[in-house]
């Protein structure tokens, strides 16, 4: 169901009706370990990236200059205006600080992972039977939430980028209820250097949540496809 070829076919159809699929803009909210690593990867993949922390753009200017050159440091509002795809990369225990309508109409990639020893006890996230992204979607009802990019440790994101067709290219899943949104996220994953895998609806998020080894497990596209359809 999830070979790269079939995605390209689907994209071909989609692009006749949705011209913005070729838009190479990306927004990232959260300029920490993960956000800056992703920004660097996205710039390398040809994206025009804007990124924000919790404060004014100047607060992260040096960080961005050194860790993610070519990315624009901005405020969160500017990041949202900058792109149709925005990545949520703030600490998991802080996503509720962001306004519910902040991402109205945007594709919001939820890259957050919930881990109690780090994020503290959060009854809602603990109890989420369909994965934590369903709770994120509830908080941002007007956003088109796709769960993705959360599977790997930030250093793995950097170490595993490979060109299409490389034998050791690894897979990243994308789960969401808005099919167009999922497809656009899959295209982003592919450009970043990963085999994209359609992981089904948003409430199928559990198989994408991370494992406990300090080196998170990596999967090929076939392995990951099996895992998410189990």
């Amino acid at each position, binding site marked *: 169901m999830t070979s790269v070829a079939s995605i390209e076919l689907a994209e071909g159809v989609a692009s006749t009706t949705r011209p913005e699929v070729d838009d190479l803009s990306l927004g990232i909210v959260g300029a920490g370990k993960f956000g800056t690593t992703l920004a660097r990867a996205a710039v390398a993949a040809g994206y025009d990236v804007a990124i924000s922390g919790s404060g004014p753009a100047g607060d992260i200017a040096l*960080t961005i200059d*050194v860790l993610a050159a070519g990315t624009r440091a901005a405020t969160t509002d500017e990041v949202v205006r900058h792109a149709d795809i925005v990545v949520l990369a703030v*600490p998991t225990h802080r996503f509720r600080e962001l306004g519910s309508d902040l991402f109205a109409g945007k594709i919001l990639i939820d890259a957050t992972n919930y881990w109690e020893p780090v994020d503290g006890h959060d009854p809602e996230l603990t109890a989420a039977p369909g994965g934590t992204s369903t709770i994120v979607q509830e908080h941002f009802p007007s956003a088109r939430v796709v769960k993705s990019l959360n599977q790997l440790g930030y250093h793995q994101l950097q170490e595993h980028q490979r060109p299409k067709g490389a034998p050791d290219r690894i897979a990243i899943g994308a789960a969401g209820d808005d099919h167009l949104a999922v497809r656009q996220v899959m295209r982003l994953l592919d450009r970043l250097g990963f085999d994209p895998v359609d992981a089904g609806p948003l409430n199928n998020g559990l198989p994408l949540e991370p494992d406990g080894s*300090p080196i998170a497990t990596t999967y090929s596209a076939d392995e990951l496809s099996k895992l998410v359809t189990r």
Partner: protein
Amino acid sequence: MPTLEFGLDTFLPVTVDEAGLPIGGDQVIRNAVEEAVLAEAVGIDSFNIGEHYRTEFMDSAGHVVLAAIAGRTERIRLGTAVTVLSTQDPVRLYTDFATLDAVSNGRAQLIVGRGSLIDSFPLFGFDLADYEELFEEKLDLLVRLLRQQPVTWSGNFRSPLMDQFVSPPIPAGHIPTWVGVGGSPQSVIRAARFGLPLMLAIIGGRPERFAPYVELYKRALQQHGQSELPIGLHSLGFVAETDDEALKIQWPYYKEQFEWAARERGWRPPTYGQFLAEVDHGSMYVGSPETVAQRIAAVMRTLSLSRFDLHYAIGRIPHDRRMATVELYGREVIPRVRELLTAAPEPDDAAAVVGT
């Protein structure tokens, strides 16, 4: 070349005896004192204790253990790795470590951090929502207490101080205080802003990936008008006579440790392949003295480090094996790393400095 410092770090893990049964927590603490006494005897520069509030670690009051070590040693520096400053009162921390500095005749040191696990937050009644603000505020007060008294200070999380002297006084420059960071750029910049040396904690992945953080730290120091400061690294490892022996001893305990977490969370346990990959090119220093020395020297060069702390023996590895690692690290690994690092590019110069 700056002075090089080689330390040992431990969380005082509950270890097992020969029969594989866990030993008492009190015995773990006394064993740690023995490990530190041996560390001094074999020439290790510092012994540093973590801070956790979990059943598997006995390091909840490390300063008391350090004071006991102080009474049995003369030279080795005594520190933390790391103190969870966010949930400590900086005034109390100051009194504990200024006193330790006095009883040890000037050997106290600190690494302070936000802590990667947050057990201490609910335990001491702090709110995780204040994670960032707590650390910033407490670091500010601690640095003032260490640098210049009396202190006049106010903040959001404790009562203000007005022209306050806190005893005992310490001589200027005592209690070197490092900021421990795990890869968050904000923390790197904060260390530079406060003019404090940087301790990187690298527990997974290739250490080279931290080179940009080193660059960020240097640039931030310049931006804040600070002079150059040392950079250190804390990483996991285990030393035995041969590579095979080290791998064979360490792997089951490594596996066990991460399997527990895996079971708790329904995760996949680590594979031997992942473990080997970390040992081969990650930041885990497991092997013979020569192997470990080569890898430490390489990372110190790549990241321009002047301090390396080995967090030795992962998991419940028995005390006698831990002692053997301490001994090999002190007697063989450290001298070899010094030798490798002083071997300058020009062979003539190298001959002159080796052995100093």
